[in-house]
């Protein structure tokens, strides 16, 4: 319970972000949302999906080289 109390106090401090910081974070959230919408995935999955796409692109490029 001691730990819980400290977490609450720490969070109380953390929440006091400036308007500018808030706007900056919101902007980043929007970018992420837009990017995820392009691939029709949830934003939390975006890094993993991008990695997969990059990997598949490499593989396809190599296969195409093989055809050439």
């Amino acid at each position, binding site marked *: *319970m001691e730990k*819980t*109390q400290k*977490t*609450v106090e720490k*969070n*109380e401090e*953390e*929440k*006091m*972000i400036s*308007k500018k910081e*808030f706007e900056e*974070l*919101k902007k*980043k*959230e929007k*970018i*992420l949302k*837009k*990017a995820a919408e*392009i*691939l029709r995935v949830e*934003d*939390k999955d*975006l*890094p993993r999906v*991008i*990695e997969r*796409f*990059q990997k*598949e*692109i490499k593989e*396809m*490029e190599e*296969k*195409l080289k093989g*055809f050439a």
Partner: protein
Amino acid sequence: MMTKKELIQEFQKNPDRYWKVKLFDELNFKRRQCSKCGKYFWSIKEQETCNDSTCRTYDFIGKPPTKKSWDIFKTWKKIQKFFVDNNHITLNRYPTVCRWYPLYFTIAGIVNFYRVGEDGSLDWEFPANPTIMLQPCLRFNDIPNVGLNSKSFTCFGMVQQTSLFDGKNGYWKDKCIELDFELLTKVFGIKPEEINFIEDAWLGYAAFGSSLEYHVQGIELGNAVFTEFLGTPENYREAKEKIIDMGAGWERFTWITQGTPTCYDAAFGPVLEKMKKACEIKYDKKFFAQYSKISGRINLDEFADFKPVLQSLAKTLKVSPEELQKIIEPLQALYAIADHTRALVFAIADGGLPSNVAGGYNLRVILRRSLSFIDKFGWNLKIEDVAHWHVEYLKKMFPELEEKIEEIEKILRVETNRYKNTRERVSRIVQTFAGRKPTEEELIRLYDSEGITPEQLGIEVSSDFYTKITERHMVEKKESEKIALDVSGLPKTKILYYDDVINFQAKVLKVSGNFVVLDQTAFYPTSGGQEHDTGYIGDNKVVDVIKIHSIIVHQLEECNLKEGQIVDCKVDKKRREILKKHHDAIHIISGAARKILGSHVHQYGAEKTEEKARIDITHFEALSEDEEEKIEKLANEIVQKGLRINKFVLERGEAEKKYGFGIYAGGYIPSRKLRIVEIEGFDVEACGGLHGDNTKEVGLIKILRTKRIADGLVRIEIKAGEVALEYLKEKEKILEEVEKRLNVKGEKVVEAVKELFEKWKKLRKQLKKMRKKK
């Protein structure tokens, strides 16, 4: 359960006890039985029938029995003056959208004064005694008769006379009937022998009593209810404070002074004239007046099929049913449109919204019924114009309607367009039935899911069709209780959570399985959409907290407690703080949405959990990105302003007087005392939830998403405080990862993802092509 009819029969065993008043003896009123309907009534004149419209014609049409002819405004002024001269206090009207009682609409003036106890008992609270008021009321259980029988309305003004009689103050039956009789005879100049009092009874929610309806030449003008018993006829006690609840028809009083063919002509005055002109309606006024005189016998509650009624009326008027229908149908439609639009004007001005949910459903039914009539007759009539004419006519008495006219017109326009859009789907739907007539259940389903009326499909329905679909949406459904635990005999739990208590000691009063009741508790139970507290009772983990009436029940993961034991308890403070912030944030978002979107915005539902919170608001269309931005911006400005959040308990009447009816924006609370949560200078709501002391404590509010979840309902999901910050930081972290993978920064990410996707698609296409070639 005893029916009203059985209750009347019970009272009839002793009619003098329940219905006889001093005036009847003084003026030699005699008790008689109607030869047509069998009801008992009191009259001076020897007569066979009771004076009800089903037993005689409206003889006052063309020949009013009153001294003078008055419009609706003068009629009210005369009634008001009479009661004020007789020591009554005039009360302002209450909103037609009822948010302080488990009803969607104010169906009678007395509803404004009902108070429901935690045990479900009924009580009354009057701001003064005795009182008089003009209360616009909305009722949707008589829709088929509106326009048809010359007297039925969905929106009508109820003259509400109330008196609380405790033996010293107020008055009881004798004085009530004396006053009502004097109003009829001295103010309106109706001859005493024209007035009949019909014996009736009122069997309401947790109270009942006898009543006397007063009728003049075929029309019931008022009904004086004498509420003197609390409980049900099977289990009741005589009330210490008896209630006079007299409701009279404002429009009907006006009608009897004018003697116009219908009550609608008297009530709507210039509005109807404008409508007739716009629709180019011409008709034989003399014939229509003859029809109106006998139209009182129409009561579609009793006849599901209108055809035999029409045949009988046609026979009396010596025309064919077809001819009669051709003459009366357009006028009936016009009267219905006038009534329905006036109902919409009051409802929207008071915060109602046509939709597919709750009370909004009834408003949509009458709007679509009106639009169907316009379609059917091919009239060049716009509902928003009719609304405008009503407001113009009524504004001198109800100036608040004029303040809302733009919002009313906008909502009616959006709804009309929505109705027109459904037309396009009609032909496709007709095909699905492959030539057969849809069943009534299918038609109800079509109306529910697509908003398509039978009229749009060209299908004639039974006259009670709209009654069937609206009755299901008249009363707010009570949530069923979660557990079946017998708490009878236990004392009311002492509540500590409003005092911010976290650690406390309590005595275990009852243990049943894993359910425990303490003598006092700081654990907040799930209510008002706010999730319950968790924590420990002894070393037992609290997993749920439920309120049953005034008893709080704790559900434990495992239970080793014994009844009578004194136990240490601890609430999970972190969870409590987050829930409080989410609750504060929902009030702030609710206030911000109302300021940005309009006063029609009310909370339909809400949920505050540890993870996030949501509020479902009444609004007629999905929110645009701009609206979403504005609401969030305003909400965070309120957070930053550091406004004080005051929490206090007020008597309901005092709270309504001080803050208006906006306090019910968060939903109805039926009790006599209200806990008010005031965000100073911004928002005031009646709320039983837990809140912080200052908006600054919320930290920040982030709207996660908004979504139109049903017609007329928009869901706003939010996170507040550190939960919102954690969410944004998490998104920032993900974006950083994405940036790293794509080797770009900020806004360039979107373009890079697009390029990546395009490249992937292009390569896939090329590879497919190559494989085919091979």
